[in-house]
């Protein structure tokens, strides 16, 4: 717990000093969102229909964009090595990393979601569904992104490889989340999809940090 708090506070200080790290993925998210209406044509009906897919694809791309730097600096500067050598509880460090990365990349997306709904012409029911699926789904994005970042930590061409490894694992999430928003915009019940998303989140929350831990130790050697 002490370790978690220390790592968390350190992470926030770093984020406050390197604003580009979390601001750039957010700007990327907004720009990707504006590309779709311009590329596909801004007919309101069409936009509302494809909005769930657009929002989710933009969200997972922006999480992926910020993922590579998650452990990179700590690895390069030897912080990770010190943590392993000092036999500190590395799991607390991993959890602090994941939680703070969620706060810095996904939480702003949640806060921006009314604006996004407005831009893409979603009604309030669909917006609520977007909000709920983002709330349940984005921690999963961050968890898996952390796994990808940890696996490719010492790889030669980590960036593109990270995307190749993690995007396939995002597919089930994308399917259920956009199905939920689709249902909501048709005025149907979408609690089933939310239940599946929660189940996936619980499973990932229990297992992924352990896999991240293993991958980090592997790369530090």
């Amino acid at each position, binding site marked *: 717990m002490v370790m978690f708090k220390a790592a968390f506070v350190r992470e926030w200080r770093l984020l406050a000093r390197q604003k580009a790290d979390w601001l750039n993925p957010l700007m990327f998210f907004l720009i990707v969102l504006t590309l779709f209406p311009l590329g596909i044509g801004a007919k309101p009906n069409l936009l509302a229909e494809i909005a769930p897919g657009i929002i989710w694809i933009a969200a997972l791309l922006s999480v992926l964009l910020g993922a590579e730097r998650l452990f990179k600096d700590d690895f390069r500067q030897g912080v990770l090595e010190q943590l392993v050598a000092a036999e500190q509880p590395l799991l607390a460090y991993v959890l602090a990393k994941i939680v703070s990365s969620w706060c810095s990349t996904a939480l702003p997306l949640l806060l921006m979601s009314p604006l996004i709904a407005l831009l893409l012409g979603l009604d309030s029911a669909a917006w609520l569904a977007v909000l709920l699926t983002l709330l349940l789904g984005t921690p999963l994005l961050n968890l898996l992104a952390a796994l990808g970042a940890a696996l490719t930590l*010492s790889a030669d061409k980590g960036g593109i490889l990270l995307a190749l490894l993690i995007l*396939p694992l995002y*597919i089930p999430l994308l399917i259920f989340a956009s199905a939920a928003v689709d249902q909501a915009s048709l005025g149907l019940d979408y609690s089933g999809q939310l239940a599946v998303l929660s189940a996936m989140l619980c499973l990932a929350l229990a297992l992924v940090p352990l896999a991240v831990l293993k991958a980090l130790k592997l790369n530090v050697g």
Partner: protein
Amino acid sequence: MFKWLDPYAKPETLYRICGLWFPWLMTAAVATLLLGTVWGLAFTPADYQQGDSYRIIHIHVPSAIWSMGAYSSMAIAALIALVWQVKAAQWAVGAIAPIGAVFTVIALFTGAAWGKPMWGTWWVWDARLTSELILLFLYLGVIALSGAFADRQTGAKASALLAIVGVVNLPIIHFSVEWWNTLHQGATITKFAKPSIDASMLWPLLISILAFGLWLAALTCLRLKTAILQNEQHRPWVRQLAASAVKGE
């Protein structure tokens, strides 16, 4: 049990075992493959609805089954590699991955070729097809990750970890036809009840499934042998082997 199994994990012993098994496995695989496909493609009766085009199941079903079978064997090897630090199991992960990927491609391709005349489309985004496609991506990810590190050892371990994570996809593929309303049909022969396929078509299919399994095992032996030689190239026994091979010529 580990006392009994442990000597077989020694690279030198494993190399000899693979060399010993490979010819038998390959002969059996070629024989059953010929028997199963020739019987299935030429001598079984045509389907009353689909005519002759159903015959592709004699290739499609075995490759699809073993695309998943290869993944589970790879994941088991990966688990052994990470938990008990058995190096030979690490190399087995790298040996199986490309074979599994090719089986997956065969399953996807034959499915598409059958889907065009039967469903009227090469591809639909149904759960079975999509999850099989994800399986292909997982295989490619494992292959890409194992080659991405300057240190071969780290690459092998990292790809083993990824292989274990990807196991979540296997039950999704298997149950996709039950959990969702898919265009892809349900299981025909894996249920406990009487199979919903006539015996005249079932037997060649079962032989083909056996053949693809043997083929997978044979190719794995061959690739594992190469992997052992590559990874152990500085060891005396490999040098001796190479020296005697040169002398023999």
